[in-house]
């Protein structure tokens, strides 16, 4: 385990302090609940779809800096993406969180998500970083477009 100051990259602190797309959407197609009862984190994700395209993505709720900043970044990155583009990014993000860093990572589609690459060294925090992503993924990969809470 290494110095945890590295965990809190500027961009993470920034998104934590001033989360983007924070708050309800007026008429979401889908509301997803993302919660980790073990640490008390709870977020709601509001999703508006236009066919296969994510038209709007908001979130609300409480959690640690890692989970909150990750949710915030997610909303900025996935807006305008198709479902499958979103799922590809999610997969790359998960891979980054769970494996040794590679040369190509820096230049990959991950973009600002690279700020979370240190999380890998803090196994307890991987769940925090992935929390809202996994919840979103579970609705994107399901066919139904109804509201359902996920863990």
């Amino acid at each position, binding site marked *: 385990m290494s110095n945890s100051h590295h965990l*809190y990259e500027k961009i993470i602190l920034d998104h934590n302090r001033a989360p983007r797309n924070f708050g309800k959407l007026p008429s979401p197609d889908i509301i997803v609940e993302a919660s980790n009862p073990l*640490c*008390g984190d*709870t977020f709601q994700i509001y999703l508006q779809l236009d066919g296969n395209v994510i038209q709007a993505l908001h979130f609300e709720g409480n959690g*640690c800096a890692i989970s909150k900043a990750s949710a915030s970044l997610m909303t900025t990155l996935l807006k305008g993406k198709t479902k499958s583009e979103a799922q590809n990014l999610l997969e790359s993000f998960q891979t980054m969180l769970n494996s040794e860093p590679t040369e190509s990572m820096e230049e990959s589609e991950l973009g600002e998500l690279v700020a979370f690459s240190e999380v890998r060294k803090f196994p307890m925090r991987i769940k925090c970083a992935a929390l809202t992503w996994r919840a979103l993924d579970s609705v994107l990969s399901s066919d139904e477009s109804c509201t359902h809470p996920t863990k």
Partner: protein
Amino acid sequence: MAKLTDYNNNLQNDFPILGKKIHGTPLIYLDNAATTQKPQCVIDALVRFYSEENSNVHRGLHYLSQVATEHYEAARKRVTSFLGADDTYSTIFTSGVTEAINLAAHGLGTLLLKPKDEILITQMEHHSNIIPWQLLCEKTGAQLRIIPISDAGELLMEEFERLLNARTKIVAVTHVSNVLGTVNPIREICSKAKEQGAISLIDGAQSAAHLNINIQDIGADFFVCSAHKMYGPTGIGVLCGPAELLNRMSPYQSGSGMVESVTFEKTSFRTVPDKFEAGTPHIAGAIGLTAALDYLSDTGMDAIESHEQQLLAYGTKVLTSVEGLRIIGNAKKKTGVLSFTLENVHPHDIAQLLDNDGIAIRSGHHCAQPLMQFYHVPATARASLGIYNSKQDIDSLVNALHTVREVFP
């Protein structure tokens, strides 16, 4: 050891782990409510057992078996006297507080619970003193009743008296809250419970290594504690209770050691404590616990209490110098448990950043989710004191919290 009345005690030297460096800085261990560190004498006792005395206990006639049996039974006596019990009590070794409460719930359930009977616990219980009773209620049709608390984190005793009634069969209360540090008025609770004919169980997980315990003086029926929170080894704990009542309770786990005779048609059980100790016990654990109790007694429970009280008072004062810090748990009688929140910083992030300075605290719900719900917080950060902590440890904590404040302005 005489140094314990002083803020800057020297007991650290008795604990090898405290000489360790974390990320290059010396370890400051403030997670004692989760588990305590082990003095060299406890480690030595384990090494001695495994290197010189290891054997299975009971019914063996060879030398090692006798030595192991003697030491195991001596450990039982040592625990009994440490808890202030006399020989109307039986001391049963369990794997910890959690198993001890499960055992008691199982035995008391079949012995005395009927539908509509009531079990009283408090808003501040640890999950291990909630769920076994909750499941027992589901099984027996009894009802779980909760003694509420004040914002300061003290039991509302008038509510307790209102809740206590002829249907109350069991009152299970923590001696000290692992989140708030509150020391509950357990003498009064046990005596009122007894008046109503209810059985009392005191969860001593957070008190046994911090306060002088005398089960008879408390007036409790059952008292439970875990060695690992008392500077002893993992995997062992204690249920101490009235032998006569325990003999009437049905056995918990079954297997070797707790039976008198076995045929495929019929098995007859032994009496306490054997009745409740099925299988090969954690012999080394019992022996390590004895060494821990000797260490505690040599240091002096009164000296320990006053040392930790001084640190608590100091810590409470200086923590409030951190901007936006709110201490959760402000009971008049507290042990050295300091739970807090810091505005705009999640407790997990506090703990993570403190680790950087070698400071070990815990963040989370501390296995007391109903208490979190009461305070409407998802989690707290918790610094909990032990015998080896010093004023400098508190100062380091506060300095590190100021740094956290800078990272999360």
